[in-house]
């Protein structure tokens, strides 16, 4: 480890010089300060989002169930036309078997406001019952614009807040780095494809989470817990991050003079926020339980489709669904998730630090992605977010994760007819990552010449190259060839296997990384970060 560290430092040193020499390429973009840089990159990111939204969405023109687009539109219809208490209840006006609302109340409120917007311009698009499968030019456009505006109003400011805090406190970083980092955060191809292609509102809950993270980095814990509670009330999937938030805040409180006071303050903030958001459903236990049961659809089984997590991958050998009942599977998956979260939580309770917190987010979200109940392909967005926040420190792993994250969603995006944006955004990401004189595109000779031939390194490079190549070929095979009739999902299964292998490796690596922070946390880290 120590040797590696040394090597890395040497690397950095040489890099600093290399960058200063070639600083000119991006000097014009960054010299006006972070605000102007952010403005420029965010306008470009918006343009890309609008361009992606020209493409089809999930379930376009495919009755009777359509897809996520219809689900979101249907929620607007429901929330707009029915009283609050009926939103989550089966009734004559609300058929829960047709895209019933299964996200927490903040999503419902958001649907209500977006519904108002749609009704103002196109009343037919949200009228009760008659609007099912409504897909006119104007209707589609308005729906797309609701996602765009949510992105602009929530995700972008949150990223700005984060970039501002991160680059003013954590590092005396170079301006080029900052611009590169903002580009990586705003042009995350997976997020753009799912929100603006497939059609969802992940930008809202992820944006709230980023804002909460930024608040933690700037020592505003109450604000952070409030924001994270909002994120949780928008999408229950935000719970993937909960262990990290919990352990980091607990660890910090424990180090104060009066730990109980700190914990109580945070607890009250969380409870208060929950109360406000869930207010309409708090009058009776029935209503509350009704909503909660909608949020946890255990009857859908431990996994769906071909998601690259542990349960789905191992089901090639062990038929979980046949061996265990749903109830025992719930218990097993919960135990597995908690066990995988535990190391990173313990680390944060022992030595809470900003950097450790970001790693903790990554580790806990990976634990959930790999081991929890009912995971979607899209859930890879959750581990990807902290990975992109850490992109400056974990450059190559970040690229690696983005590549396989995208790859794991490839079958889904193919179903949505988003192949062209998939490749275009993939290419755009790689180009930005390797921007001239930015960080990915560092000239090779900037590295110190390692005269010693390292067998392990070359083996690793070979393996990585081999898997990269095979996944590239798989893309083409998936698009051009039909699987054998006996195994209609052969290609999906192979993609899943490769991605699971990579994700598991990655999760292991980041866990080790987080624990290695502990070794020298007391000296320089404290000085630097807290």
């Amino acid at each position, binding site marked *: 480890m120590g040797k590696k560290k040394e090597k890395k430092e040497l690397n950095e040193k040489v890099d600093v*010089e290399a960058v*200063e*020499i*070639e*600083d*000119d*390429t991006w*000097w*014009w*973009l960054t*010299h*006006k300060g972070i605000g*102007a840089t952010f*403005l*420029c990159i965010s*306008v*470009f990111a*918006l*343009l*890309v989002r*609008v*361009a*992606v939204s*020209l*493409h089809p969405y999930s379930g376009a023109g495919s009755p009777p169930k359509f897809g996520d687009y219809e689900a979101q539109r249907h929620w607007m219809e429901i929330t707009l036309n029915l009283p609050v208490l009926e939103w989550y209840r089966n009734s004559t006006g609300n058929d829960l078997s047709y895209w019933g609302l299964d996200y927490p109340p903040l999503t419902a409120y958001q649907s209500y406001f977006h519904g108002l917007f749609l009704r103002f311009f196109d009343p037919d698009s949200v009228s009760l019952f008659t609007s099912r499968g409504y897909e006119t*030019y*104007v209707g589609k*456009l308005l729906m797309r*614009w609701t996602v*765009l505006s949510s992105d602009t109003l929530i995700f972008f400011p949150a990223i700005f807040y984060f970039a501002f805090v991160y680059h003013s406190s954590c590092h005396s970083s170079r301006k080029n780095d900052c611009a590169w980092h903002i580009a990586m955060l705003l042009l995350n191809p997976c997020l753009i494809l799912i929100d603006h292609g497939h059609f969802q509102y992940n930008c809202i809950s992820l944006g709230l989470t980023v804002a909460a993270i930024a608040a933690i980095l700037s020592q505003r814990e109450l604000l952070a817990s409030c924001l994270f509670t909002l994120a949780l009330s928008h999408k229950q999937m935000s719970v993937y991050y909960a262990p990290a938030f919990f352990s980091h805040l607990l660890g910090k409180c424990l180090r104060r003079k009066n730990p109980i006071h700190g914990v109580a303050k945070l607890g009250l903030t969380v409870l208060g926020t929950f109360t406000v958001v869930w207010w309409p459903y708090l009058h009776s236990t029935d209503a509350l339980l009704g909503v909660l049961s909608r949020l946890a659809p255990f009857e859908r089984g431990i996994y769906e489709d071909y998601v690259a997590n542990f349960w789905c991958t191992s089901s090639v050998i062990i038929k979980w669904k046949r061996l265990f009942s749903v109830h025992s599977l719930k218990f097993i998956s919960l135990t597995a998730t908690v066990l995988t979260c535990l190391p990173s939580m313990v680390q944060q309770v022992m030595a809470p630090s900003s950097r450790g917190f970001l790693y903790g987010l990554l580790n806990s979200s990976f634990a959930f992605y790999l081991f929890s109940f009912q995971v979607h392909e899209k859930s890879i967005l959750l581990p990807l977010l902290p990975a992109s926040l850490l992109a400056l420190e974990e450059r190559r792993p970040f690229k690696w994760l983005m590549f396989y994250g995208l790859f794991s969603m490839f079958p889904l995006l193919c179903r949505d007819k988003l192949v*062209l*944006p998939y*490749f*275009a*955004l993939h*290419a*755009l990401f790689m*180009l*930005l990552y*390797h*921007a*001239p004189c930015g960080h990915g595109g560092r000239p090779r000779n900037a590295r110190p010449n390692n005269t010693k031939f390292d067998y392990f390194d070359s083996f690793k490079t070979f393996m990585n190259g081999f898997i990269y190549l095979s996944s590239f070929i798989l893309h083409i095979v998936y698009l051009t060839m039909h699987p054998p009739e006996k195994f209609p999902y052969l290609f999906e299964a192979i993609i899943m296997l490769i991605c699971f292998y990579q994700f598991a490796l990655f999760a292991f690596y980041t866990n080790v990384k987080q624990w290695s922070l502990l070794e020298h946390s007391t000296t320089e880290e404290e000085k630097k970060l807290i």
Partner: protein
Amino acid sequence: MESSSSTPQLLWFFAIAVCVKLLLIPAYHSTDFEVHRHWLALTHSLPLSNWYADETSPWTLDYPPFFACFERFLSIFAHYIDPQIVDLHNGLNYRANSAIYFLRISVILSDLWLLYGVYRLTKNADVKRRNLIWVLIVWSPALVMVDHLHFQYNGFLLGWLLLSISFLQEGKDLMGGFLFAVLLCFKHLFAVAAPVYFVYLLRHYCWEGLFRGFSRLSVLGAVVVAVFAAAYGPFLYHGQIQQVFNRMFPFGRGLCHAYWAPNFWVFYIILDKVFSFFLKKFGFSIQIPAASFTGGLVGDSSPFAVLPKISPSTTLIMVLLALSPCFIKAWTNPQPRMVARWIAYAYTCGFLFGWHVHEKASLHFVIPLAIVAVQSLEDAKHYFMLSIVSCYSLFPLLYEAQEYPIKVLLLLLHSILMWLGFSTKFTRASAPNTMVTAKKKGAQSKSIESSSPAAEKGGFTIGWVGKSYLLGLLLVEIWGQFLHPYLLGDKFPFVPLMLISTYCAFGIMYSWIWQLRWIISTT
């Protein structure tokens, strides 16, 4: 080292643009898409002698022969992709994904020629200047709007023009002239700059003593004649030459296009309206012409109530008159470094005073001017205004709601990039010791920043006139998009468009005067 690392960087800029253009494939395209698809079918299925005689579709071939050959070349690949694209009869209005993808990607790939032109122009420029030029041309929002949304091949054609300019700037006049002749055989609208080329080449290339001059003149003449012979010879052989010219120069089109290009004639029309309004008030009987400009396309009858009718020859004389200062300069002092300005100026004159000008023609001078935009602070200020105005004047091309955010964001991004780029270039350039060795620069950057108030003063700012003009642009847009439909409903649907052309015409007129002044004042 710089020149060796410049190619990958330029390719990087281009590749970023390609990604965005690929994403824009499903966006709106105009009837020009069907025009070009039909030309593919036409050149693929008919023999050369029938290219200009065919009447299967109203979109008859009206570009010069080289462009037809270009379409013929593309049709070979189109045939492999999907034979129906190039089917003369079954392919009419064919809009399958295969056709859209093929044609869109052909535009994206043909932009490589523009890229080569830019590469040749900037290969000897210093890093900062080069990067800015790339941003201005390779990421030009106007080109994206016209070529990749509206659908045309301007990038490819401008590539020839830029290549020609790059050769002229290097002093390789013969090659420059040859490339320009080729360009004319691709699209004859570029001929506006031909007189400037003629004067410049005659003086700079041929004016070297009697014998040598004469031999050079004959070489140049032979090259140009050879190009034209290669283009038109086959049609002459088939006896089709008259038909070719009939198609290329359709008479009976009006002074202005349906949507007025923001040029001089806008003022003329407005003046006519104002006169007729006041004369009627004072009791004169004025015949309001049936074919009014607000109604759309104009036929043969005079559209003016009071002012004299304008004929194509009048516009020609006006263009030549406007060009005359440039002729004099090019004759008295032919300098390679001024060539780009002169050519851009010629296209500006053609745009302002020409007959039946399309708004898209503003590309012909905005793109070449990008080369000189980074030369001085004055240039940068002028280009900043011109580029925004000309891009904004293209907005009515994309009138559907779906593309609205795209065009706005494109213009916004372009303005921000220009503002950032120019202000860096010219704050730093005026600070002392900018050309210090690279290593010191990192350490010095802070001190330059802190000591820059003096430099800021001379830095990139647009005065209050410019600012209020740009603000007015915003108001015009808000009026046209939101207030007009809200307040007046469907009444006077032409007013927003008229406002845009009139308002942008001021900007283009300003640019013309500015260029004219520059040309006259430089020695």
